[in-house]
C-alpha cells in the first residue's frame, strides 16, 4: 500500500519534471524562435504573397496577379540578365579563387623557418570586408583614379568596358576571399597524414604525382565545402558591385541582389522584385542542399 503510493508520487513528480523540462526548453528556445519568426519566416511568407501581387507606384494597395506574374518575371530580360550576371560572377570568382587559394596553401604547407610569417601574410585578407576590399580595388582599377587603369593589364578588367567590367568586380572578391580560402585549404592539407606522403615517396611518386593522386583526393571534401561557401558568397554579391561600378556600364554588372536592392526603392516593382528574390532563394536552397549532402557524406567518410 505504502509502496504503491510511493511509486505513484514518484510517477507524478517524474511527469511534472517532464513538463517542467519542456517548459524550460521552450523558454530557452523562445528568444531565437522570436527572431526567426519575425525576421525569417514572416518575411518569407510576405515575399511569396508579394510575388503574386502588383503594387502601384505610390505604394498603395496590392492587386492580385497570380502565378502569371512569376512566369512574366522569370522570363523577362531583367531577371535573366541579373541571373546571367550572377552566374558569370560565380564563374569568374570561384575557380580562380580556389586555384589561387590551393596554390598559396600548398606553397605554405612546409615546416621551414619563418613560415608563420607567410601564413600570417596569406591569411591577412580575412581582415577586409567586402566594402574595404572594394575600396582597395577602386585604388587599383577604377578607370579614373586606379593605379592600373592605364596599363595593358587593365583591358582584362576595365570597369568602363561592358564586356570586362564584371571581371573587374570579380577580381576584388577573389582577392578578398583569398585569406579565408587559404586558411581552410591549409587546415585540410595539414590533416593529410605525413606517413602517407612518406610511403608514396618510397613508392617512387614525384611531388606532382603525390599532389594529384594523394593530396587532392584527400582534401576534396574540404574543396567541395569551399566551393559551396564561395558560390553562396557569389550569389550574394552586392557591396562590390555598388562600390566599384554601381551596376554600370550599361547594366552589365547588375547582379540579382543588386537588382533586388535597387527595386526596393520603387514601390511599383514590389511584385516583380519579390519573384526575383524567390528565384535567388531557390538557387540558395539548391546549393545548400548540395552542401548538406557533402557534409553528411563527409561524416560517413570519417567513420
Amino acid at each position, binding site marked *: 500500500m505504502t509502496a504503491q503510493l510511493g511509486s505513484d508520487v514518484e510517477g507524478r513528480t517524474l511527469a511534472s519534471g517532464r513538463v517542467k523540462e519542456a517548459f524550460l526548453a521552450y523558454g530557452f528556445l523562445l528568444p531565437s524562435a522570436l527572431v526567426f519568426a519575425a525576421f525569417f519566416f514572416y518575411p518569407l511568407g510576405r515575399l511569396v504573397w508579394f510575388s503574386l501581387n502588383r503594387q502601384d507606384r505610390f505604394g498603395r494597395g496590392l492587386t492580385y496577379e497570380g502565378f502569371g506574374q512569376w512566369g512574366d518575371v522569370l522570363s523577362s530580360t531583367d531577371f535573366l540578365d541579373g541571373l546571367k550576371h550572377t552566374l558569370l560572377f560565380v564563374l569568374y570568382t570561384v575557380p580562380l579563387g580556389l586555384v589561387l587559394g590551393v596554390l598559396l596553401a600548398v606553397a605554405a604547407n612546409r615546416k621551414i623557418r619563418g613560415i608563420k610569417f607567410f601564413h600570417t601574410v596569406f*591569411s591577412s585578407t580575412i581582415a577586409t570586408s567586402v566594402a574595404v576590399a572594394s575600396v582597395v580595388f577602386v585604388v587599383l582599377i577604377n578607370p579614373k583614379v586606379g593605379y592600373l587603369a592605364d596599363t595593358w593589364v587593365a583591358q582584362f578588367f576595365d570597369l568602363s568596358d561592358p564586356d570586362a567590367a564584371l571581371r573587374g568586380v570579380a577580381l576584388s572578391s577573389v582577392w578578398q576571399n583569398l585569406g579565408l580560402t587559404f586558411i581552410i585549404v591549409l587546415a585540410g592539407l595539414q590533416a593529410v597524414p605525413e606517413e602517407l606522403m612518406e610511403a608514396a615517396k618510397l613508392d617512387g611518386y614525384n611531388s606532382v604525382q603525390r599532389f594529384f593522386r594523394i593530396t587532392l583526393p584527400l582534401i576534396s571534401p574540404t574543396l567541395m565545402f569551399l566551393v559551396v561557401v564561395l558560390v553562396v558568397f557569389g550569389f550574394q554579391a552586392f557591396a562590390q558591385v555598388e562600390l566599384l561600378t554601381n551596376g554600370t556600364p550599361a547594366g552589365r554588372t547588375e547582379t540579382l541582389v543588386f537588382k533586388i536592392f535597387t527595386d526596393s526603392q520603387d514601390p511599383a516593382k514590389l511584385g516583380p522584385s519579390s519573384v526575383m528574390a524567390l528565384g535567388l532563394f531557390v538557387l540558395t536552397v539548391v546549393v545548400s542542399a548540395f552542401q548538406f549532402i557533402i557534409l553528411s557524406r563527409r561524416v560517413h567518410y570519417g567513420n
Partner: protein
Amino acid sequence: METELFAASVGAVGLGFGAVVLAFLGVALPVAMATDAWDRKDAPSERRTPVIAIGAVLTLVGAIAAINEFWLATDNRWAVGFIASAITATVGLAYLATRQQLVGGVEPSSNAQILSRLGTYAFLCLLSLLILFPVWMTFIRALSGPRAYIDAGQPLRWIEPEWDVFSRAWSQADFSGRTLLSVAVTSVITVGQVLTSVLAAYAFAFLRFPFKRVIFALFMATLMLPIEVTLVPNILFVRDLGWLNSIQGLTVPFLATALGTFLIRQGFMGIPRDLLDASQLDGYGHASFLFRVAAPLTRPVIASFTVISFLGAWNQYLWPRAITTEGDWNTIQIALRSFVTSNPEALNLGVAGAILAAIPILVLLLVDRKSVV
C-alpha cells in the same frame, strides 16, 4: 621617338616595381627571421635572443631603407636605400635558407637543399606580393593627396605624404562616429547571438521536449534564408515598426542565428550525459549546469563562434545600407561608399577610413591567431 618614350616608361615602371619588391624583401625577410625565432619557445633563450635581436635590427634598417627609397627619393638616397635593403634581405634569406635547426639543434644542409629552399622562399615572397601589393597601393593612396598623386603620374610611392590623414578621417570625416556606431552594433549583435545560441543549443542538446526534431529542422532552415532573399519584406517590416535609422533596426534581426545554435550544440553533445545526471544528484538545476559546467567545457567552440559572429556583424553591408537613410546612422562600412562613389577630391580620406575599418579585425587576427586561423 614614341618607342623611346615607351621604352623609357617601361623602364621606369620596371625600376619602380623592382624598388618596391626589393624594399618589401628588405623588410619581410628579417621580420620572418625574427618571428621564427620568437615562435620557437622550446629552444634555449641564449640561441633565440640574438636571432630575435638581429632580426629586429635588420627589420628597422630595412624599414628605414624603404622609407628612404619612397619618401626621400633623391638620386643618391635611392642607391643607399637599395644597398641597405639588399643587405637586410640577403641576411634574412641566408638565415632562413641555410640550416633549418640553427635555433635548437644543428642540422647541416647540402647545397642542393639550400638552393631548393632559396627557390621556395622566392616563390613565397612572390605570392606574398599578390596579397600585399594591393595593400601597399591602398596605404600610399591614403597618404598622398588625391590631386598631387594623379598629377605626379600615379607612382608606386607616396607623394607629399599627409600623415595626419588618419586623424582627419577620424575627426573631420566623422569616422569616429561611424566607428562608435559600428562598435555598438557589433557588440549588441555578437553578445545577442552568443546568448540566444547558447540557450537554444542547450535545449537541443540536453532537454527533452515535444516537437524537438521539427523545431530543430525549422531552426536550421533559416540558414537558407539569407537577408539578401528576404530583404524587401524585412525593410517594410522594420519601416512599419518605425525602426529605420535606429539601433534596433540595425541589430534585432540578427540577434539569433542557426549557425551558432548548430555549432554550440555540437560542442554540447561532446559532453557526457553522465555529467548532467551527476550534477543533478548534487542538486544542480539546468541553469547552473549550463553556466557552471556545459558552457565552460565548450569554451573553445563558443570562442570561435564569437569570432565568426563578430566578423559577420562588423563587415555587414547590405542590411545597414538598406535601412539607414541618414548619414548619422551609417556604419563604418557604409560610410566608405560616399567617399568612393561621389567624392574623388576626398578619396584619400575614404581610403584612410577603409584602413581604419580593417584595423579591429587585423588586431584580432594578430592577437588571437588561433581562433581566426
